[in-house]
């Protein structure tokens, strides 16, 4: 039977009604709230294209049940920063011209943002380890690393 949940996304509360409380958060964000930035890549938690912040932690929204996200503060890439008030990583991503197709971009920026929140000056190895479970098929890995470095060194 349909159940209702309140989701707090990018600072605003929304009520969603779902037929299955185990439905992944990704589909609530995309289909119910029409937030297009988290993307479906694998549905298995293997690639990172659907990454959002749950109370500041980077999680893969394809593997988090909507019921488990109801009490958390959810932030998506579009809520991380705006053209007027960009997150430093978004600025660095433009300065380094990192992405090509950008289908994977949520994973990289949201994961790196969570890392920098926890540890503003990570070592090169720590950056690489934090980003090591992300997939990009355009080959932007090196550029993404340079963009994160740029923020760390600024």
């Amino acid at each position, binding site marked *: 039977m349909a159940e209702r949940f309140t989701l707090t996304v*990018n600072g*605003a509360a*929304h009520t969603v009604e*779902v*037929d*299955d409380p185990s*439905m*992944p958060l990704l*589909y609530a964000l*995309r*289909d119910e*709230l*029409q*937030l*297009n*930035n988290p*993307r*479906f*890549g*694998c*549905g*298995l938690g*293997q*690639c990172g*294209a659907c990454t959002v912040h749950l109370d500041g932690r980077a999680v893969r929204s394809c593997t988090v049940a909507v019921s488990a996200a109801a009490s958390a503060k959810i932030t*998506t*890439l*579009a809520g*991380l*920063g705006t*053209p007027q008030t*960009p997150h430093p990583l*978004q600025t660095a*991503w*433009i300065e380094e*011209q990192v*992405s*090509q*197709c*950008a*289908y*994977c*971009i*949520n994973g990289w*920026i949201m994961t790196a943002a969570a890392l920098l929140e926890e540890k503003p000056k990570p070592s090169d190895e720590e950056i*690489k380890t934090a*980003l*090591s*479970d*992300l*997939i*990009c*098929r*355009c*080959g*932007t*890995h*090196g*550029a993404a*690393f340079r963009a994160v470095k740029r923020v760390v060194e600024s």
Partner: protein
Amino acid sequence: MAETGELNRRVFLLATGALAIALVDCNPRQAATNGATRPPLMPDQLDSYLAIGPNGSVTVFYGRIDGGQGLETSIAQMVAEELDVPLERVRMVMSDTARTVNMGGASGALGVSRSGMHLRSCAAEARRLLLEMAGDALGAPPDSLSVADGVIRTSGGDATISYAQLIGDRHFAAKLTWNGEYGNDLMVSGKAKIKEPSEFKIIGTSPRRKDLPLKVFGRLDMVNDVRLPNMLHARMIRPRVAGAVPVSVDESSIADIPGARVVHIKDLLAVVAPKEWNAIRAAERLKVTWSESHPNFPGHEKLHEHIRNAPVIARHIETENGSVEDGLRNAARVIEGEYEFPTQSHASLGPACGVADVKNGEATVWTSTQKPHYARDGIADLLGLPPERVRAIWMFGTGSYGRNDQGDATADAAVLSQHLGVPVRVQYMRHEGLAWDPKGTASVNRSRAGIDASGKVIAYENIGKAFSRLNTATNEGSAAHVLAGHLLGVPLEPEQSFNVPIASYTFDHKRIGWEVIAPLMERASPLRTTHLRDPYGPPILFGSESFIDEVAAATATDPVEFRLRHLSHPRDRDAVRVAAEKYGWDARPSPKSAQRNADVAIGRGIAFRRHFETFIALVAEVRVTRSTGVIEPLRYVCAHDVGLIVNPETLRHVIDRQLVYGTSRTLFEEVRFDENMVTSVDWLTYPVLHMNSVPQSIEIELISRPESAPSGAGEMALGLVPAAIGNAVFDATGVRLRRVPFTPERVKAALA
């Protein structure tokens, strides 16, 4: 919330059918244009390619796409240059069959070299016509006038008139010379001459990409994000054994899922539901009885044995001079080398997605295929509609480099929408994006060389044997070329073709050719083959450039010196020389003798190619650990000559990213399958490169030749990675790797 409000507004506009305007409004990337009032799209009309708005904005109608490599910006630069307008004033409309002429979609990295040059020519012609109009308006001869920022001035500077005043929102109604072709072969030109390199102000500079801010701030709508009123979400149901078809379907197995329904047309099976998650659940739960099928695939481990033994169904000798047989007979010794390349998947990060709305004998599809114009023709064929009743609108989507699965998803959506009478969105699941996309072919590349008593190579032969790279055509222009057509039983139209490395090396006796074998399964095969990025580069260059190195080593010649000895074209030679110099190449034969018994060894290798008029050499330095079999790329140096460079920074990025991607294909990627089905279904069973395997340093040396026409850059460098790494491993260890991917197990076995 503002964002949701904006999106709701878009949905409302979609409901009114004002799609073009809606997308323009919500997506600043799309230009506002007078599209509705434009004259009919004729390839020989200037108005089909370019429009100037009432505010002086310039809209370019580019019948290709930008998959994320910066073409949108580079093409706009070329147009801005010829028109003498600021780049910011140029907006690009990419493939939409109602608004753009078919210029080929994305294909062969020809965006700049073909379509960019044609649009440059159109812009130059528009400028010439505007100067003529200004001459009449200002009472001055056109050749006495000058243009800056879209404003025309008399020589004294006392009178001015702007492009907007002259033509804003009206049409040129001017004819171009058109060669009668469409797609990649379309050529148009006007009477105007394009600028000389000495006059460039915008070409050769590096403005940032126009598409990136939207992507970085999470505001770019992709094909996945199209939502239409009453739209159903669909999931396709695929068999567990290739070739099996649905015999019966138990619809009661999904009866408790709200709104879920089965669509079963011939062998095509899908579930649909108003809510996406319910469609996914229904697809997981649906009980299907499948027919018996015994594909008897050889399995990926024995695939090359199969290729070696399979009868040749098509053969072509591309280049032949002298007599290889005579040369080999007269040789003091003959060297033979065989190199195996695996089946590889496009493995796009996003599995394909397509949206279709078919009603009242008309169809609109939103697609991220690389070939929207051809997809329109294919969908018309599939639906039994005249092509002019089908509109294909390209949208950004997951990166696609070659004929991936996007066209298949679009076709599935069109068939389902026609059947159901409502809009349908098909989103493939991860396993479909790996197991069911059309694949890049595996190959066995074999070479022979005859060396005379003095150490000179007198005979050379290179033959690549593979499945056809066009078993599934790349253009999607007929129902036979999409999976839905296969499942609906349309007659197939396979073409037999492979290819050869461009034969830059000169030898007295030389033969270069290809052989094609029959596909493992004729219809609806999960292993059907087509173009994967750099369609035949990696398989054939892994063979040919590894073998050239093998011959250099056999004659105790430095690999750079050996290549230069057999290359005569100055641009070939420059690419090799520049890469070696920039790397700091120490001339000596491979392998490096000192490390023979060390566990960790470092080596360097070079590979070279010419592709169209692009000349590239890549030096790779790698570290090999014998005990683990792990290869670590340390440093790449790439010399790259593409002729005229439009945007140097974007070009560097394009090369940098594809070298990383090429590393993935070299070290990790192989489609696995058993006798029944592809078993690579996710990122664990189709491993790809992660952050820890990225080369520590990639240096790119651009060779600028403004006087030469621009060639392509989108895929040519990546084809050198397998041979460059393989040659570096040989230099480090004295062992030659003969099979891609260079997995630790395989490297360990080779080094044992």
